[in-house]
């Protein structure tokens, strides 16, 4: 008798809901990346210089780098809890393609750690005296860029899920990989200030997002199968 198992989409929804529920119950998974982003972004005026002219030059870069570091920090516990309590094995053994399960987990992770950073970025941009015209540019580019950080990061996390201490290795694997997005994001903000068209940059970032959205979960799924044995 063929087992009529649930449709992949409902399993996708179930995994997404479960992860959001876990995040809701464990508040500090949401607060930590968010606070980290605030703290790192506010260190730069102290470290570099408080004058608005100097700050506005580096504002875009500071915001993007802080968002990248916040995403890296949040990535560490992406699969860890599930690996330790055995839920990851259930995920691997489910009849549904692992691609969608990993995608669900990545989306849930981004909603918890990436989206708050994006939502608060205009406020921090104001504190870093970002030039007036580029608030919406920063917001949109971060909105397209931070998912790519967690998608790429999930590959590194999946590769090192079995290790105990893996913070550093995770950084060394993920940071170089996120350089293209960092470049596209910072350029989008800087170049639109002197007249470049915003649509061009958003198109490029959108392409990067789709590239990551389709390929990264494949690599993460393969990496999970390798690490969980």
């Amino acid at each position: 008798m063929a087992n009529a198992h649930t449709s992949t989409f409902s399993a996708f929804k179930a995994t997404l809901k479960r992860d959001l529920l876990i995040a809701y119950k464990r508040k500090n998974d949401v607060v930590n990346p968010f606070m980290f982003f605030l703290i790192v972004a506010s260190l730069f005026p102290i470290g570099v210089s408080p004058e608005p002219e100097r700050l506005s030059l580096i504002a875009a870069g500071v915001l993007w780098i802080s968002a990248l570091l916040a995403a890296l920090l949040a990535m560490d516990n992406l699969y860890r809890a599930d690996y330790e309590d055995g839920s990851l094995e259930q995920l691997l053994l489910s009849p549904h393609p692992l691609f969608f399960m990993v995608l669900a987990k990545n989306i849930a992770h981004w909603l918890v750690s990436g989206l708050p950073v994006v939502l608060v970025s205009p406020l921090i941009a104001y504190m870093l005296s970002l030039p007036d015209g580029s608030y919406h540019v920063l917001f949109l580019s971060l909105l397209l860029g931070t998912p790519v950080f967690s998608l790429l990061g999930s590959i590194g996390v999946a590769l090192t899920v079995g290790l105990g201490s893996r913070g550093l290795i995770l950084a060394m694997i993920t940071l170089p990989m996120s350089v293209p997005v960092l470049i596209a994001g910072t350029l989008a903000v800087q170049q639109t200030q002197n007249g470049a068209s915003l649509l061009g940059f958003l198109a490029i970032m959108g392409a990067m997002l789709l590239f990551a959205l389709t390929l990264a979960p494949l690599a993460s799924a393969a990496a999970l199968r390798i690490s969980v044995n």
Partner: protein
Amino acid sequence: MWTWFHKLGSPKWFYDISGRWLPWLVACMAVCLVVGVIWSLLFVPQDYQQGLTNRIFYVHVPVASISLAFFPLMAIAGTVSLVWKMKLADVVVKVAAPLGAWFTALALASGSIWGIDTWGTFWVWDARLTSLLLQFFLLIGMISLRSALEDTDAAAKACALLSIVGTINMVVIKYSVLWWDVLHQPPTNFTVDNSQPNGPEIWIPLVIMFLGVYLFFVISLILSVRNEILRRERRAQWVSELAAQ
């Protein structure tokens, strides 16, 4: 052709074959390097713009271009190790990372020294140097993942996967750094290497140097692969016979 491919899988066969080829390779490498170095140091005419620093060109260009070959090499070896589960391919992936880091480090050092008199400072965030730097970081990531996962089958598959992902990334990084450089650089369209007309007396020693450094890359890789084979097959019969001699 297939028998050759499967024979390549047995480490002992590779160990014997490489043992026989090594002396010849070393001899060719020595000849190429000696001729190349002497020719480029002594006989290459001064460059009207850079003066005698074009000698650095003869070390930087071969090393930098071969360093670009490391990620594709690891990706191919990684794919073979993942798909056909060939132990030798995993040995190549493991051994190529440190050697790649050495090549990239020398390319970085010689590139920045070469740029000193044209840019006036030791380090400039020029497109080529920046992508070499990022390649160096990715290679260090490969090495650290390999050492973190000790040496099991899982480590082999994980590193093979990372090498494939790393190669795709290296391509994307290369072009995004180029794009970043063009947008930031005031358009001086001054590229360092092909600024003066290259007569044959310029590029012949370059080809010889390139050949010498390429042979060196092959030899060093083979030496390390042989060591790794001995380490992994240390319980095998043929290794203990070898050790007894």
